[in-house]
């Protein structure tokens, strides 16, 4: 049986792992390779590294730490941030990343999704979607969320964008629900269910994990393939081995 995946997310700024609340006010939580190894040892199924400053500053992911991580860890990892071309993707993939995730640059130029999918296969193209519910009740996409001063609200509806990027060749979707991110009251089940309805590729829930029950809820009620979280893991409030034991006790297939 295919396991549901638990994915610690490491936001990277200037070569260190940081974490903010609702995408703002970042504090340093640790060194990249050290944290990557800690999560590997604890049983993380995969890791995601977001270079949160790369996209707004118009610069690329720094390749050195990607290679350091690739040398040390033996579980898959995905790198996001500032990948704007097939060449950028090639560089990160050749440095040892298993997947690349594109977010703001895909909104600037959607064809980027198909260009990377054609060059390297859909399996390594993850599209990250930052989404927030507007006053009219619609979920819409946000761009450049790594830097609050540059974050833009777009007209594009989140569900339309998910359908578009799938058609273009996205192999996986990470839906970051900004309204629930960092406040630990649970994943945005309503939005994730709506996304699940239209997503045939793997769907990763992001934003809102606070307790092990939140993970169980999102797997059971939104049928997501993976759940991503940052602060609860960085703080030690949730230990991955205990989380997996609890999920397994609830009949949810996980790798132990």
């Amino acid at each position: 049986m295919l396991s549901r995946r638990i994915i610690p997310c490491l936001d990277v700024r200037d070569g260190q792992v940081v974490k903010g609340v609702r995408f703002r006010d970042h504090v340093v939580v640790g060194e990249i390779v050290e944290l990557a190894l800690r999560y590997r040892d604890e049983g993380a199924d995969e890791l995601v590294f977001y270079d949160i400053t790369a996209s707004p500053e118009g610069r690329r992911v720094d390749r050195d730490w990607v290679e350091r991580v690739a040398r040390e860890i033996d579980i898959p990892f995905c790198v996001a941030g500032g990948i704007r071309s097939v060449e950028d993707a090639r560089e990160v993939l050749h440095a040892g990343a298993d997947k690349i995730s594109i977010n703001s640059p895909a909104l600037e130029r959607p064809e980027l999704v198909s260009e990377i999918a054609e060059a390297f296969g859909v399996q390594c193209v993850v599209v990250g979607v930052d989404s927030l519910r507007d006053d009219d009740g619609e979920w819409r996409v946000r761009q450049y969320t790594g830097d609050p001063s540059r974050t833009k609200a777009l007209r594009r509806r989140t569900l339309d964008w998910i359908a578009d990027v799938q058609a273009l060749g996205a192999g996986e979707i990470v839906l970051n629900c900004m309204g629930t991110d960092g406040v630990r009251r649970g994943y945005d089940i309503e939005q994730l269910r709506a996304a699940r309805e239209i997503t045939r590729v793997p769907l990763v829930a992001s934003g809102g994990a606070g307790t092990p029950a939140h993970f169980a809820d999102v797997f059971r009620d939104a049928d997501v393939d993976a759940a991503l979280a940052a602060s609860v893991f960085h703080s030690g409030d949730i230990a991955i081995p205990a989380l997996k034991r609890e999920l397994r006790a609830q009949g949810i297939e996980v790798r132990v």
Partner: protein
Amino acid sequence: MRVVLVDAGGTNIGSVRYALQRLGTDAELTADPARIRSASHVILPGVGAAAPGMRRLREAGLVDVLRGLTQPVLGVCLGMQLLCEGSEEGDTECLGVVPGRVRRMPDSPGLRVPHMGWNTLQASAHHPLTEGLREGDTAYFVHSYAVPVGDYTLVASRHGEAFSAAVGAGNFMGMQFHPERSAAVGALLLRNFLSL
């Protein structure tokens, strides 16, 4: 022992090389036919699509070189698919050293393609490559095409229907999952390959 990684442009070459380094083996990255022929172990990594994968092998003049190898050869992910007779992906003729044709994995509600994540391995034949593999062991998969189950299947896995997670035909072996990203289980299987 001299291990070579066939440099045919696959993007997981670095990760496979690092995985071998963690096992204490420094593999040479090469597209030189003489270096490949004289190696003790040959690994064909690969990520991407079948047609460009075969095109790169043809352009590097490696198709007949690989077909003619007699030492242990391991294809990883797309590399395993390229060992087969052909692939539905882009209707591609492959190396044909392992029987079977690669097929698109069927998707249906609740069954996502690409098949992505950790899945259970089921050894279906006794083989030195799978020595020490235990019931319930899992490996990391990322693929949309798969080799059906057949006589050449060494390890099966299931995503909707059963497919070959590892194959073997004489000195040619393949792993559909990524041993370089499958933690201790992946290391075990790579070590088994190196000890052949």
